[in-house]
């Protein structure tokens, strides 16, 4: 008996890992990585949106750095959200269709292990894809930042800027290059995709079709960006005199739907701001909390399901 099989039989972790690897392979065979070629084109093309500048060395080329970050993180967000929803929505119905699900559940595999494994497989795929895109974005950004900085410093020296001014210019420009905050923003993109994947998993346990799961998940994704507004209406209702029904509606809305507005810190990072580690840590806790809850809720539904 191989070591992997022994692990798979012996522990939850082992079983989950085997199912996750299988789900990952299954998705890779759907040729999702072709998207990386599209991303490479986008990342490189964003280098060419070099619009005219209006001032001295301090503005030279900064727009291109914004453009690279904005296009890259935007593409990552779209890709990760679409992939996490569609891939998760596909997995369960596909296993039923291929009758793989019956084979797995006929064995002593707890249903929670099956669900967690499937989710982990999707997350693994999203993570690997984002890591590859991140590496490409960082490389393009690093090269371009070096070029921009070279041009700026050359112009500053030609204009006879003093050393402290040149240093201030260098610091400002590096903030728009590849920073740890930017890596944090990519991780926040992954966390948001993880929440969507686990939510799609929950929906797919009671959904009747892949399309239904995908549509509902996308709706929740968009509405989730307003959840904080509903929460604010509930929490500050006394100030603006909402009716009891309005307040209860806002409460229900904010209890049921996930809050995605906090993840908009990504925009601030693209704009050159620094994301404190504490904020990233709290976002990670939020992501984990949703993923664990939605997976547990999926299990509640899935455990009762007859096949």
């Amino acid at each position: 008996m191989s070591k992997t099989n022994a692990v798979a039989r012996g522990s939850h972790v082992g079983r989950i890992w085997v199912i996750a690897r299988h789900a990952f392979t299954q998705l890779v065979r759907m040729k999702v990585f072709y998207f990386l070629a599209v991303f490479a084109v986008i990342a490189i093309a964003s280098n060419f949106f070099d619009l005219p500048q209006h001032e001295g060395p301090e503005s030279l080329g900064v727009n291109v750095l914004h453009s690279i970050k904005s296009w890259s993180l935007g593409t990552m967000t779209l890709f990760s959200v679409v992939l996490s929803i569609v891939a998760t929505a596909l997995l369960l119905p596909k296993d039923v269709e291929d009758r793989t699900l019956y084979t797995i559940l006929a064995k002593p595999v707890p249903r929670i292990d099956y669900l967690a494994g499937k989710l982990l497989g999707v997350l693994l795929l999203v993570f690997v894809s984002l890591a590859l895109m991140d590496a490409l974005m960082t490389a393009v950004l690093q090269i371009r930042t070096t070029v921009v900085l070279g041009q700026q410093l050359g112009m500053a020296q030609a204009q006879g800027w003093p050393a402290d001014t040149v240093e201030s210019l260098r610091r400002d420009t590096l903030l728009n290059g590849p920073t740890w905050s930017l890596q944090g923003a990519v991780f926040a993109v992954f966390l948001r995709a993880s929440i969507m994947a686990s939510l799609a998993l929950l929906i797919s346990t009671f959904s009747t079709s892949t399309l239904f799961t995908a549509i509902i998940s996308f709706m929740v994704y968009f509405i989730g960006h307003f959840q904080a507004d509903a929460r604010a209406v509930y929490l500050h209702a006394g100030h603006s005199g909402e009716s009891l029904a309005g307040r209860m509606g806002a409460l229900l809305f904010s209890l049921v739907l996930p809050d995605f507005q906090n993840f908009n810190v990504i925009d601030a990072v693209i704009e050159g701001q620094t994301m404190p580690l504490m904020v990233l840590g709290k976002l990670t806790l939020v992501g984990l909390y949703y993923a664990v809850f939605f997976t547990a809720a999926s299990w509640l539904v899935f455990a009762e399901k007859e096949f």
Partner: protein
Amino acid sequence: MLTLALLAFGAARMPFEAGLAEDIQAAGLMPPKMEIGTRDKIGQTSSAVALGGLRTLVATFLNLRAFGFFEEQRWNDVSETYGTIVDLAPRTRYYWETGSWHSAYNAASYYLNDSKLPALRRREAWRAAIFQGRAFLERGIRNNPNDWNLLSSLGFLLADANKFPAFRDPNASFARAAETYHRAWETGKAPGYVRRNEFYALARVTGKESEALSLAHELYTEQRNHVPTVMILLLVLESHENPELDVTARAVEIFGTPEKAYEALASHWQHTREHFPIYGVAGALKSLEKSLAVSPDKSIFNKLLQSPAGPDEWFSH
């Protein structure tokens, strides 16, 4: 059971998420909510993309569109597009600076030279474009109060010799420029030239000569500030403070030789239209011309003053 779990889960996470939102707000990382007007302007599809957490991406698209408008010299569209862009990405300095630049510099220059319009209308359009650029920068500063670059850009616009004639009271304009540069300097991030620019603006405010002289003395203590404009303004302000001062002797002391002193004073005299003070300059120039035996045809007083002139000349035909 699931509904109950969902509600309990929601109740448990709500305070944490509300606290996190406050932390993010406090760190200045949360963009303001998108206005309904902005949603209308960018259309349904872009609204959906922006609401899906991709506001900066939509702003990047719009920036490209604005560039197209700029190339076609559709100034109202440029201005409107930048208004939308900064609603989407209010922390990106580039958009504030570029939006203001298009109005105050590109559109204003266009109206300065647009031969299709009568002079009076060109003049009003020129003035309106500069006002619009200024207002845009001021809005940018309200959104990013600690950005020294934006403050410095506003100071530059208000003290720019080609722009300040658009403002009815140049004195107030220079005072505001000095105040803006000072705010930029107080952020602690601005380079040394911002402090000098504050001085250049302050020196042009009638009634603030003593304050300007104090700043000149402060600047002059550092070798890196021994640039011609600081040196000449120090001399001029000292002359204002003490009308009995021997300006010629002091000029030679500051610049080292009578030739260098004459060159610096002559250059300063040539820039009279930029509203720099000239207390004692004419007398010192005459004295130096005499001692250096400058022939009348080469005298600085027989040369034309340098541009810029002013709107009366620009829009005379």
